[in-house]
């Protein structure tokens, strides 16, 4: 058994993967689009936190909320301005557009924020003791917020009128429109929530890691892997996939050091060999 501190780090990493993956999977399951620029939205969110919290000295939690809303609004702009006009043209345009946005956002970040790594100070300093274990408050807050956000997301999607309309519209937009659901509004809501999740993940992670224009790639890849492991289109799958990658990642760093990066892919290959549809996916008929 790895030491408890390693479990804690696994929990931390899992929280972040889960937040990013669930935003991505929400957008995919409702809109049928993989937003490849999701990681760059995360990156922009991290810069927002840097400038608001680390530089301007705005309260961390206020900065977090502003970041989530700002990245959510950026998501709406992407959906309205780029994805929706291209919607009638098939599956490829959204792929090209969101891949293109990766370079656009990384370019903008490099140009305006500079390529240097930036550090965000700890938002919640100090440590707490839980029994024999000492954990930094920062990490506890990250996990607590991640759990709260995921519970909130679950409630929103499965127990509210808006969530019901989102799911109905994803399954059959024509029929949903007959009962008064406006597809456009549903798409905007979905994109807002999905991208806001990336903003929240960025806000939580920025004080723990550094910020630069290229931090979006790894979270995107990990989130995509989590989604594939968990089963495409299932938020629960993204949660389990994210946890699997987060814990196995930290455990393997502990035991194997640098070789651990490979293992994420080995896990994916193993899952796909045993269950091609993913853990929570449905076999295709």
């Amino acid at each position: 058994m790895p030491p408890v501190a390693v479990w804690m780090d696994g929990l931390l990493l899992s929280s972040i993967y889960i937040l990013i993956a669930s935003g991505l999977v929400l957008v995919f399951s409702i809109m049928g689009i993989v937003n490849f620029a999701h990681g760059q939205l995360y990156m922009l969110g991290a810069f927002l936190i840097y400038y608001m919290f680390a530089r301007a000295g705005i309260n961390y939690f206020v900065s977090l909320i502003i970041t989530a809303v700002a990245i959510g609004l950026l998501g709406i702009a992407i959906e309205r301005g780029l994805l929706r006009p291209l919607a009638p043209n098939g599956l490829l345009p959204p792929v090209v557009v969101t891949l293109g946005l990766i370079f656009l956002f990384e370019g903008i970040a490099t140009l305006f924020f500079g390529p240097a790594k930036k550090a965000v100070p700890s938002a919640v300093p100090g440590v707490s003791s839980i029994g024999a274990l000492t954990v930094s408050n920062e990490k506890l807050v990250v996990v607590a917020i991640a759990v709260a956000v995921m519970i909130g997301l679950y409630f929103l999607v499965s127990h509210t009128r808006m969530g019901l309309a989102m799911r109905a519209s994803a399954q059959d937009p024509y029929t949903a429109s007959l009962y008064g659901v406006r597809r456009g509004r549903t798409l905007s809501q979905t994109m807002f929530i999905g991208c806001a999740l990336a903003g929240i993940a960025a806000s939580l992670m920025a004080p723990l890691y550094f910020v630069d224009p290229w931090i979006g790639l790894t979270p995107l890849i990990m989130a995509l892997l989590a989604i594939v492991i968990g089963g495409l289109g299932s938020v629960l799958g993204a949660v389990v996939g994210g946890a699997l990658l987060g814990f196995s990642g930290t455990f393997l760093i502990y035991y194997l050091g640098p070789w651990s990066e490979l293992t994420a892919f080995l896990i994916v290959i193993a899952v796909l060999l045993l269950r091609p549809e993913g853990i929570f996916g449905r076999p295709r008929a």
Partner: protein
Amino acid sequence: MLLLKSIRVHYNKREAVKGISLEVGEGDFVVVIGPNGAGKTSVLNVISGVINPSEGEVWFRSERIDRLAPEKIAARGIIHVPEGRRIFPKLTVMENLQMGAYLQKDKTKVERELERIFHLFPILKERTRQRGESLSGGEQQMLAIGRGLMAGPALLLIDEPSLGLSPLVTQHVAEQMTVINREGIAILLVEQNARMGLKLANRGYVLTNGDLVLEGTTAELVKNEEIRKAYLGL
């Protein structure tokens, strides 16, 4: 209540509906019969605002509605129960019903409507937590009509409810439509099953090739020689 004036519908160059006029009175039960591809579904889609007619007008309670968005039309009390039922497959029966009441703000009204639907279709009450896709064809049709009723409609547009159902189940669904109509909800029914349609409705239209070729009370229509030959097999 509902008035269609010289409605034309084009899909690209092809004219699917060729200038038809049609009327449904308050509390009326009207059927449109005709073969597959005659344009019956297009007419309903025009009324519910899913497609825009290339020409003509739609009036509902002295208000022109043919350029309104579907949700605006639904909010005015015209509810479309689509062909093939189109139950939301991954939503539960209860969630499907809730989707019907999406625009309904009054919670007590929703509760009352739900009571009425469970009274009308008791089988739905036993299935509230099941996914829509797990229901049989007949149950799905009942759910589709129930979902429509949840919106508290003044006029129900029902498209091919008998499609793929056994005669016995069709009979059951037909009886429920009569009950719904007797409670004051006007129905515009579109059916290939002319025998059933003419038995249920008060008035009928015959649509072939996008044109209305006959109209009248159903009592007159069932006596018509052409209809007896072409649609009733007599």
